């Protein structure tokens, strides 16, 4: 301190002498004598258009590239789906490119399976091995080989088909856990993919559809929602949500109707009844669908307000108001989503909501639903196909499994027996970029490019009314010694030779893509196709004219859904578990990205882990405090999770996000949190086998110790909004 005062004094005496000496000198900047290579100029950023692959929605992105490195991902304003907007997952795709734990070269297994011990090998050796693995199944009808992928669309689908045509016995399983295969099970499934015209509707009813988080195309619907609320000068859209859990989407609603799991459909029938009573149904639409008002009136006759309140467990006043609003405000739109679809009574429940939409005359109408048939090839499999494959593996019929873009070891519950069966496959080849749960089991890993290094075309499965082909292009040079999966297929075709090589003569996927796109995009076949493609790449894809809406055929008359069933005995397991897709990790594919790990969950505000949501009343009965570790058990298994007291949940329901608890996937994902799929018990005798993420009964037991829970919000402070005047 003495020194300080000394400096102070000497500083003051120096002040006068120095002040005179302060002059600003002129500085000159030297221009470049030799311009830098590669068109890179320091300090100048370029934007490259591409397409997001973090969820199936397929939003258009712009990647800011500076000094040869991708720096930031933004939404592509010219893309009709997301119009310049992008969610957190999309932006975090950047970290996939630069992830420190990416697989940097081909690997051959050197230790026991699952040990993660691999030896790097050269691409020549790797390709040779792949060709050797594939060779026995060529032109053979023996069912020894399977390709496991996510659902494929566009030229990836055609390429895979072209390739696998030469392996007649091979199974292609294109499955992922959150793929909305259930959309096809309702009344309107045949119509194709829906685009909900949220922005133009006035009353929105969500039946367990978390369209702002994970349902179909969250960015598209998020954008529509903003306009629905406040873009029209005198109209503010009103929104009610029915479902057992107050999800982020439900939190944005004006009214949340906390219905029992699997009972939401009753409200749809209640509204249908009132529509008919007040004669506000759309007779033309009903007639077009071949629905008779009398028949339906008969079907829904019992569903007066009291009955609806009884079935759903929601108080009568709220049910009454909601029904009043739904029949009096027009246009009113009903969206049905996963929380309904993941119950045992799903097909009929979905049909009930679709019936409501038909009666409201919502098809192909502003403020309603536009269905546009997808003309492009789509490869997807159902859960039933998966079960058949598991059976084959169990019996040892499968000799070779190729896994690309899919992580079934993680995303299937142990009760499906997949993990056990998969271990019986003698040869597993993975095309993953990370040592994730599935690729850890692989014998050979041929690492693919990251999305920002790849070519491709992405066709949005929902949310657009015109034909849209989003294009992916590499925005940076590949960081590591990797090869894209489609390039590998072409290379394998070359190596295998014969007819296969003749049919797939392209030297690279880019060539294949160009050829394939030329078939589908009329503009490319006129003039200089290369120039045209460049133009499309610049704008992010091909955005076709609005397509002719699909016409509704005759519908089967709806039938009443049964009561929802749950796996496990009610006496033994008094609570119902709702597993929901995390907004940050979707189905778990993004949990290796640190930006998403540290993005607080919107509702629980938890970061870097998983948790179990419990209604505070239930927690008080069981003596569970916030952050305390609890043991959750079901008929299928038992896991431990920290508790989050969650007032927006029915007391008999507990909820857990999907996406954590990986046994691989790099330093940020591995061993973090718990995978709730371990609890999922299988429902027997369902007409449509599916992952019923909301149909398992559990019991919970406090363990009287603190769990690893970190929340960004203070648990008590979170209830004190009045201090902000909010």
């Amino acid at each position, binding site marked *: 301190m003495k020194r300080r005062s000394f400096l102070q004094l000497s500083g003051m005496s120096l002040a006068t002498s120095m002040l005179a000496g302060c002059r600003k000198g002129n500085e000159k900047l030297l221009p470049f004598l030799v311009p830098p290579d590669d068109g890179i100029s320091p300090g100048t950023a370029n934007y490259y258009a591409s397409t997001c692959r973090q969820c199936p929605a397929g939003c258009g992105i712009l990647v800011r590239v500076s000094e040869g490195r991708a720096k930031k991902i933004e*939404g592509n304003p010219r893309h009709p789906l*997301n119009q310049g907007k992008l*969610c*957190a997952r999309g932006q975090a795709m950047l970290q996939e*490119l630069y992830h420190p734990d990416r697989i940097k070269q081909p690997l051959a297994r050197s230790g026991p399976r699952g040990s993660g011990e691999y030896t790097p090998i050269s691409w020549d050796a790797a390709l040779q091995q792949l060709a050797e693995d594939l060779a026995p199944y060529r032109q053979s009808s023996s069912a020894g080989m399977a390709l496991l992928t996510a659902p494929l669309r566009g030229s990836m689908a055609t390429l895979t088909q072209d390739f696998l045509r030469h392996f007649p016995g091979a199974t292609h399983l294109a499955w992922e856990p959150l793929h909305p295969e259930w959309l096809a099970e309702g009344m309107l499934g045949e119509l194709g993919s829906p685009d909900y015209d949220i922005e133009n509707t006035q009353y929105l009813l969500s039946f367990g559809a978390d369209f702002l988080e994970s349902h179909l195309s969250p960015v598209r619907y998020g954008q529509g929602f*903003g306009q629905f609320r406040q873009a029209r000068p005198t109209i503010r859209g009103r929104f009610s949500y029915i479902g057992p859990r107050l999800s982020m989407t439900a939190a944005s609603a004006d009214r949340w109707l906390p219905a029992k799991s699997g009972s939401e459909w009753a409200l749809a029938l209640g509204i249908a009844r009132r529509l008919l009573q007040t004669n506000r149904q759309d007779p033309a639409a009903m007639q077009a669908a071949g629905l008779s008002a009398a028949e339906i009136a008969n079907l829904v006759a019992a569903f007066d307000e009291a009955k609806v309140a009884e079935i759903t467990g*929601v108080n009568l006043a709220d049910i009454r108001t909601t029904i009043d609003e739904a029949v009096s405000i027009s246009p009113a739109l009903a969206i049905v989503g996963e929380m309904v679809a993941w119950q045992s009574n799903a097909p009929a429940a979905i049909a009930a909501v679709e019936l409501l939409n038909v009666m409201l005359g919502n098809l192909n109408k502003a403020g309603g639903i536009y269905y546009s048939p997808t003309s492009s090839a789509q490869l997807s499999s159902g859960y039933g196909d998966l079960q058949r494959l598991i059976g084959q593996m169990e019996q040892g019929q499968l000799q070779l499994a190729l896994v690309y873009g899919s992580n079934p070891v993680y995303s299937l519950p142990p009760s499906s027996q997949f993990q056990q069966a998969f271990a019986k496959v003698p040869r597993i080849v993975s095309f993953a970029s990370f040592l994730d749960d599935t690729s850890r089991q692989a014998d050979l890993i041929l690492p693919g490019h990251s999305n920002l290094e790849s070519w491709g075309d992405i066709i949005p499965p929902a949310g657009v009314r015109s034909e849209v082909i989003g294009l992916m292009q590499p925005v940076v040079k590949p960081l590591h010694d990797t090869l894209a999966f489609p390039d590998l297929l072409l290379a394998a075709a070359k190596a295998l030779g014969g007819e296969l090589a003749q049919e797939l003569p392209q030297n690279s996927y880019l060539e294949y893509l160009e050829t394939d796109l030329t078939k589908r995009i009329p503009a490319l076949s006129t003039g200089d196709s290369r120039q045209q493609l460049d133009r499309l790449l610049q704008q992010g894809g091909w955005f076709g004219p609005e397509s002719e809406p699909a016409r509704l055929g005759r519908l089967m008359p709806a039938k009443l859904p049964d009561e929802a069933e749950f796996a496990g005995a009610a006496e033994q397991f008094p609570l119902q578990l709702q597993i929901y897709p995390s907004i940050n990790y979707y189905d778990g594919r993004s949990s290796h990205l640190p930006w998403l790990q540290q993005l*607080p969950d*919107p509702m629980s505000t938890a970061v870097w882990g998983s948790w179990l949501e419990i209604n505070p009343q239930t927690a008080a009965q069981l003596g569970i405090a916030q952050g305390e570790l609890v043991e959750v058990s079901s008929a299928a298994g038992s896991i431990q999770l920290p508790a989050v007291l969650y*007032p927006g949940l029915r007391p008999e329901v507990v909820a857990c996000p999907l996406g954590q608890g990986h046994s691989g996937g790099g330093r940020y994902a591995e061993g973090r949190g718990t995978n709730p799929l371990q609890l999922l018990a299988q429902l027997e005798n369902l007409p449509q086998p599916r992952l019923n993420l909301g149909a398992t009964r559990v019991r919970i037991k406090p363990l009287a110790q603190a769990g690893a829970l970190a929340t960004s919000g203070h648990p008590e402070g979170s209830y004190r909004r009045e201090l902000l005047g909010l």
Partner: protein
Amino acid sequence: MTTEAKDIRWGMVIDLDRCTGCGACVTACQAENNIALTDQQGFAQGRNLQWLRIERYWEGEFPHVRARFLPMLCQHCDDAPCEPVCPVYASYHTAEGLNGQVYNRCVGTRYCANNCPYAVRVFNFTDPSWPEPLEQQLSPDITVRSRGVMEKCSFCIQRIRRGKEEAKLENRGLRDGEVQPACAQTCPPGAISFGNLDDPNSRVARMARSPRRFRLFEDLGTEPSVIYLKGGGHEHPG
């Protein structure tokens, strides 16, 4: 619509009726501004570095329960409590109404953070690190802050600068909406708008005249440049 630079007073309008709480803005901000990673322990200890956070408030009890989201970032107060308490001018007010933070100057008294009623200033408790090659994502436009330095939302000052430079090259003023911070740019429901509050015709100025407008802690007299629009239609009693 163009304005001269001397008339600029940057402001933001956040429509809470549009905000869905999705967190896209949080990640956009983190990506744009080279914000360091915070591990689970860091979060548990309250050392989260995010400049923008979504606050979630619960209201009421089951079944009449609601959750409200409040995106919280530096409010760029006109009468900012953080500024005069800084002994070294690390925190100061720019001519365009921004709350500047000079990282080089900051000695880490953390006084500004205490005096910020919005608690939006974050402190670098340790040197940031990105395992290789994750550091390649860092934007060259922004410095990486070392330990001991206070940081906070800058309204994406680098984007404002870039916008101005481009406008200057084209010999014109800035257009309304030309400059957007990363959060506003990405926000799917379009809850965040940014612009010049001094231009009465700008989008933010028009929105700021909404009857739904309010500012946080108006009674403290901090005169924030972030204006919120109330979320409507909440008929459930708290």
